[in-house]
């Protein structure tokens, strides 16, 4: 009997956080200025999910990782150049918008539809991974909705640690309020884990892994199905970058003691 995990990671691209972002009106609603040209990265929390998935698959025999990405095909291809060498996975690509202003409800429908069609995926062994929220929409709702659509009702949000116990059950730590973790035990897959930072650093590039991944990445990109996700029924009245530049007072060449006194006064005020 097969015992390994079938791990599906949902994750797509977001603009590199170091880029300046400016909202613009487009015929299909708000978007970003020069959106198609912005350098992008794999959404940070989804990236942690991918590294955790690969680590878990690597330490549990007969496991496999898929990465399901919804984004503009050409930009997904660029993204793959950055991440293909990180960890082994099979790409499932959906060709559609990856910006923050689409509705999670529609995105979840597209992702769940794509997961249902994955050839050879054993849903009884499924661990559905993703980030706790995206760096674009930052909603933290997509994974739960995909989970519901796939009928998975053991779900965890803001996970930092997942341990497979000797009896095959899962021990999960989720971030909750006040810097605490909630520990839960789950009988096993299927389950949804939306990851926080996890515990693994970004893996170094491995050209061999890259070559192996590329064999499935190129066909997946060629076969990427168009996904017409938008924001039906959502009416954005206004999107803007708040222009609050503070008038910073610079205090220089003042003894530490005087600065300390000023800080303490301010703290007590």
């Amino acid at each position, binding site marked *: 009997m097969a015992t390994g995990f079938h791990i599906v990671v949902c994750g797509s691209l977001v603009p590199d956080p170091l880029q300046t972002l400016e909202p613009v009106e487009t015929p299909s609603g708000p978007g970003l200025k020069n959106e198609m040209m912005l350098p992008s990265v794999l959404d940070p929390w989804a990236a942690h999910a991918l590294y955790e998935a690969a680590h878990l698959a690597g330490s549990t025999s007969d496991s496999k990782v898929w990465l399901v990405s919804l984004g503009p095909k050409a930009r997904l291809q660029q993204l793959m150049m950055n991440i293909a060498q990180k960890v082994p996975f099979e790409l499932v690509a959906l060709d559609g918008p990856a910006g923050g202003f689409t509705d999670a409800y529609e995105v979840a429908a597209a992702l769940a539809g794509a997961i249902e069609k994955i050839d050879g995926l054993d849903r009884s062994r499924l661990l559905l991974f993703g980030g706790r929220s995206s760096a674009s929409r930052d909603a933290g709702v997509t994974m739960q909705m995909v989970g519901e659509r796939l009928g998975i009702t053991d779900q965890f949000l803001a996970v*930092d640690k997942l341990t497979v116990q000797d009896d095959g059950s899962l021990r999960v*730590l989720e971030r909750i309020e006040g810097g605490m973790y909630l520990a839960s035990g789950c009988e096993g897959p299927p389950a949804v884990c939306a990851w926080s930072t996890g515990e693994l650093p970004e893996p170094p590039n491995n050209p061999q892994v890259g070559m192996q991944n590329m064999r499935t990445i190129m066909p997946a990109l060629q076969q990427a199905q168009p996904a017409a996700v938008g924001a039906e029924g959502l009416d954005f009245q206004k999107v803007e970058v708040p222009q609050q530049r503070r008038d910073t007072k610079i205090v220089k060449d003042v003894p530490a003691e005087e600065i300390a006194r000023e800080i303490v006064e301010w703290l007590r005020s």
Partner: protein
Amino acid sequence: MEKILFLAHTDTAGALPKVALEVLGGAMETAKSLGGAPLTVGLLGGDLKAAADSVAGCGAESFLAVSGDEFTVSRYATDAAAAEALVRKSDATLVVVPATSRFSRAIPGVAQRVEGRVDTHVTGIEIEAGSPQIERWYYRQRMVAKLAREGRPWFMLVDSGVFDAVDCLAGSAALENVAVEMPATRTQVLGEEAATAEAQTIRPEAELLFVAGAGWTKKQADGQSHLPEAEQLILDFLRGSLASLGSSKSLVDQSGEGQEVLSFMSHMNQVGQTGSTPRHPKGLATCCHGEEPHVVGWRFIKERRAVNLDPGCGWAQGKADVLYVADAFEVMAKVNELLGK
């Protein structure tokens, strides 16, 4: 006419958490601005009588409850089943929910079940021309949007610090129990654990957010790093000021890279793009150079000051109210001395 359901769960003591009292205030305001839209309170937890009584005077037409031992703990399957039952029973078009970790996990799935739509991190609710619209941020606090939706029920998970907490509403509420079909529970809640074995440094209610940057671990003027001293200064300050400790990404990442780090620091402390965006009235950044992904973590910090050796510090310029160009080791040692007096 909109119908509003305010949902809340109780805390371990059986009371409503502070954020629930705040968001109830928001729900009441919204009901009023909609010209007296009917408001229902839906509660889930163990024994809910005390919690319902504590807000009996909120003007709700009814108090619905899903109670029982299974609902005292934070678990997706039971929380989603309970919330779904409350939403269906109430027939609400707007479901206003405090963004606790428990509801942030369960409510999106409930929205899916009832074919509703959901928005999280809501930072404002307004009524424009008779219909509700919300404010929320996109791209991790980079840009702010106002939006309305056609889809109903519309679930709004409202962040803490947006509305003032209600009080003086105590009385006697008539609770109506709502039956729930118990879902299979393959998950057992084991309990809460601290993120580090060291001192608890994250205090959401603190007056001050103290952010330590990677500079604390860098080589100083004498060519050496001074980690034990940095640790002591920071811990003494946290003790003296009761501040909450935040960190830049660079500093918490160092542990993953095997470098020496501050032992009480974990990823939980990180503020910014891939960390948290806490709300505190004041913030003091020390040894942070930072960039936009760092600064977004300060979006909801009102008064901001920084200590950095570099007068060109990209973090402070235009973003802090005051930048002290000074050695944080010296300044914080003096601050601790003064706080100890």
